[in-house]
């Protein structure tokens, strides 16, 4: 990977490929373009400072960046210190989200899957994912039992996985 050799052009190429994913997830979480741009900058600078954080033998860069961006945006939203050590984050998934067409197809599939979920399940998943709420906070807000919320969140994520397994 070009970035490992300290190549600034390599960094620009990675930005061109993955910045949209990083920015859009941060924007959805934070609801503010400036704050989303800050997360974008922070995530790429972390990669620049320490490219060893991402282990290319154990996953693709695009999904890894998306997960890190979501973590950082939630940390910003909840005004908390980073909770996840990004050196520990290994993401196992295809697609790589590198190409526009590939990303567009995947996006359609994800939106279709979310759209076909029961609304209570989608709501629980989105509250956990985009608002960074814990299952007990979601339970308080929705009045649903804790166990139900836990189950909905997990089965929501598994539904996404299943959509891409076929």
């Amino acid at each position: 990977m070009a970035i490992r050799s300290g190549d600034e052009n390599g960094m620009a190429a990675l930005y061109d490929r993955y910045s949209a994913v990083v920015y859009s997830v941060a924007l959805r979480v934070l609801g503010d373009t400036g704050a989303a741009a800050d997360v974008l900058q922070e995530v790429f600078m972390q990669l620049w400072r320490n490219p060893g954080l991402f282990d290319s033998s154990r996953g693709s860069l695009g999904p890894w960046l998306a997960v890190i961006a979501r973590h950082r945006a939630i940390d910003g939203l909840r005004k908390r210190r980073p909770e996840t050590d990004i050196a520990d984050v290994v993401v196992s998934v295809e697609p790589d989200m590198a190409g526009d067409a590939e990303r567009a197809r995947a996006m359609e599939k994800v939106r279709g899957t979310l759209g076909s979920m029961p609304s209570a399940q989608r709501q629980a998943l989105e509250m956990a994912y985009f608002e960074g709420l814990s299952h007990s906070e979601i339970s308080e807000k929705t009045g649903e039992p804790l166990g139900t919320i836990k189950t909905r969140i997990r089965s929501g994520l598994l539904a996404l996985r299943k959509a891409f397994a076929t």
Partner: protein
Amino acid sequence: MSVHEQFAEDLALYALGALQGEERVSLEKHLDGCASCHRELEQLRGDMALMALSTAGPVPPRRARQRLIEAVAREPRRSATPATRGWWTLVPWVAAAALAAGLVALGLQNSDLQRRIAGLQDQSAQQLGELQRAREVVSTLTATDAMRVTLVAAKTPPQPQGKAIYVRDRSSLIFLASNLQPLPPQKAYELWLIPTSGAPIPAGVFKPDAHGSATVINPPLPAGVQAKAFAITVEPESGSSAPTLPIVMFGAGE
């Protein structure tokens, strides 16, 4: 799926960063030794990455790219090569840093410990100062470009001289010589510690420089030997285990 069912839902919450307290601690403990739950965690993060795709559409402002490129240009990668200085000058700092980090990790930030950290840092700074002074002394003694002058009574021709400074408790010995005679090929001078009882102990093999000067700093010595005198002989370059006569220089302790 081989993931442990009792952890399955907690794993999803953990991937999302939503698991707290006891549940988080017990899951992390389990994750340490469970490869299948680890794999499931990676899969769940993959699912999270897919979830991120549902937001696709907005593109970052154009200036964000420029901002990143400028920041990257301003911050060249640090070289992996460490600064060249003696590792031992870092020892007090590393010790202080390790202790401080350990204390922070334990969350024991009470005022008593903070006072101890401050005390340790003061001590480290003091030790660093002492090390610095010691280094300066040693580097002056051993510098090849040092001007070495032996003062003797006026109108006396220069004589070979040696000065041994020995601290028994630390087995520490510094020997400085001047006006030494040049040596035959394949020969060297050897310094001997003559103990109050027993055979002479080798205390360093050395050759004088072009001006006849030489130093021996802290040769390996047995601990706590009481010295009554020091002597110098001429030996093979590799040194000897017992002195070869004649003794060319000799001095007894006061």
